[in-house]
């Protein structure tokens, strides 16, 4: 068991989400940075999609009630009883130790996975919290001070006593995720249904920088910049949407739907962000400048494969290194 000693608002239990129920209006939810959640789980020997804790407001303090292997990935700067942990790191906490997580300057969200996973009841196949639907996770609520969370049975993982980490994805795959010369985050997207109805404004959409406004959360990011508008109004019928869709309401400032995206939408949509870049947007803090880059299906596929290879590499190597260190410690 772990106890939430301190937490900011809107920190939740998440896994890889609840896909498959959009057709009854159920939001997918799940981690805003599914790559970080996956790696945190693999570091403690869990399945990639085990439930972990997503932190977006800090500081957070968690007390371990028994010896527990845990991992912290994504943003956040972690300390175990005052000892600073490197980023993207797993370690074993002794009973009574306190993990403290503070915000990081570069990334918005931290993920803490625990050996065995957070054991809350799955709802419609997922342990993700749906705050809007008030179900999943910890009874549909954000984490509160004093919450005690059960952990699942450990998968008898082999953990080196000194802990270990992984090279973060942006360092390992730096060449695949370039930044603009002015520092803006480059986010690759495909034109969506109403793209061409924006006329010349569509070109400005790709050419100009956008800023993530303060009206941004797990549901969606509202971007600020020079408004873009349809050349003439068009009738829209409600349709299913996925996270990453970039819609343009009448005001002209785009909205990007994120993990808690509505399942249906009716605003004209100018673009759809490829999933290989969506996790980076999930880690972008309010105020971040970004620029959209037109991508192709082939590029999206190549990036998906590169990310899958990184995940596979972490999974296999982490297991081998764990065994090797354990064997060495035993002789």
């Amino acid at each position, binding site marked *: 068991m772990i106890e939430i000693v301190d937490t900011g608002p809107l920190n939740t239990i998440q896994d890889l989400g609840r896909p498959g129920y959009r057709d009854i209006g159920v939001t997918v939810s799940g981690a805003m940075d599914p790559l970080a959640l996956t790696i945190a789980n693999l570091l403690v020997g869990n399945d990639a999609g085990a439930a972990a804790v997503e932190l977006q407001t800090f500081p957070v303090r968690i007390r371990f009630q028994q010896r527990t292997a845990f991992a912290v990935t994504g943003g956040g700067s972690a300390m175990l009883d005052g000892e600073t942990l490197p980023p993207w790191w797993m370690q074993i906490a002794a009973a009574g130790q306190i993990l403290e997580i503070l915000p990081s300057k570069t990334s918005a969200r931290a993920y803490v996975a625990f050996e065995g996973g957070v054991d809350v009841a799955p709802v419609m196949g997922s342990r993700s919290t749906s705050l809007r639907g008030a179900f999943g996770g910890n009874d549909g609520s954000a984490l509160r001070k004093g919450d005690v969370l059960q952990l699942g049975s450990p998968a008898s993982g082999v953990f080196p006593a000194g802990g270990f980490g992984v090279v973060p994805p942006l360092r390992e795959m730096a060449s695949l995720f370039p930044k603009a010369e002015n520092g803006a985050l480059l986010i690759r997207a495909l034109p969506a249904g109403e793209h061409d109805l924006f006329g010349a404004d569509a070109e400005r959409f790709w050419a100009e920088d956008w800023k993530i406004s303060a009206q941004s959360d797990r549901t969606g990011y509202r971007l600020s910049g020079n408004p873009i508008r349809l050349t003439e109004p068009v009738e829209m*019928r409600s349709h299913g949407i996925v996270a990453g869709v970039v819609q343009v309401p009448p005001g002209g400032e785009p909205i990007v739907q994120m993990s808690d995206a509505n399942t249906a939408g009716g605003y004209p949509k100018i673009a759809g962000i490829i999933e290989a870049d969506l996790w980076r947007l999930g880690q972008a803090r309010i105020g971040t400048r970004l620029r959209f880059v037109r991508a192709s*299906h082939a590029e999206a596929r190549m990036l998906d494969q590169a990310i899958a290879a990184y995940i596979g590499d972490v999974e296999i190597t982490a297991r081998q290194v764990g065994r090797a260190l354990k064997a060495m410690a035993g002789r």
Partner: protein
Amino acid sequence: MSHAVRSLASRPLIRSRPKISAIGARAFLLDAPGEFDLAAQRRIWALTQTVRQWPDVIETVPGMTNLLAVFKAVPEDPDSVISRLLDAWERAESIDIKGKTIDIPVHYGGAHATDLAALCDLCSLSDREVVRLHHQGTYTVFALGSAPGFGYLHGLDPRLHMPRKTVPSLRMEKGCVTIGGMQTGVAVLTGPNGWNSIGFADLPMFDPAAEVPALMAPGDIVRFLPERIEL
């Protein structure tokens, strides 16, 4: 952002062929050609049943005369996906889903009917007449979406059509019986809502713990029973 906002509604987009567009790299949206009517929706239901069987499709989301198909992985050949969808649309025969009939007792008027007066003004009918037209209608669940278990109901008397609000109500109670454009429905979540409320229903529409979480399904028939009228 609780319901789709169509404040730009002006020029209806009528095509003869379906339009297929991408949302990101592994979702494709097919918009049916023609009017927003039951015939088009029946063909969307048929298309949904076909596409759902495709081994590379992970999710199908029927909307208002459209279908979103989400694929398991980014397709190697997106053009072939588009032709498969067009082909499936051409073959899709209108199906009539034999849905169940759901009777929803409604308390018309009262504290929850925050937009009844505005609707009366808009359609120049008395509140009694508005309520009568609403509960005498027979509605078809076109699709679910927007919020867990929320059914978009088709069949609203044209005299009761009322555009969605440009500024949504900040807190509308779950259970409010609402009108949005040419559709009606029952709010399933308490929160911001752009539809217009004329009454209240107590019937639970969604239970996440149930084997079938949503009360409504596409093709179901819905009737509103005036349990109480408070004007």
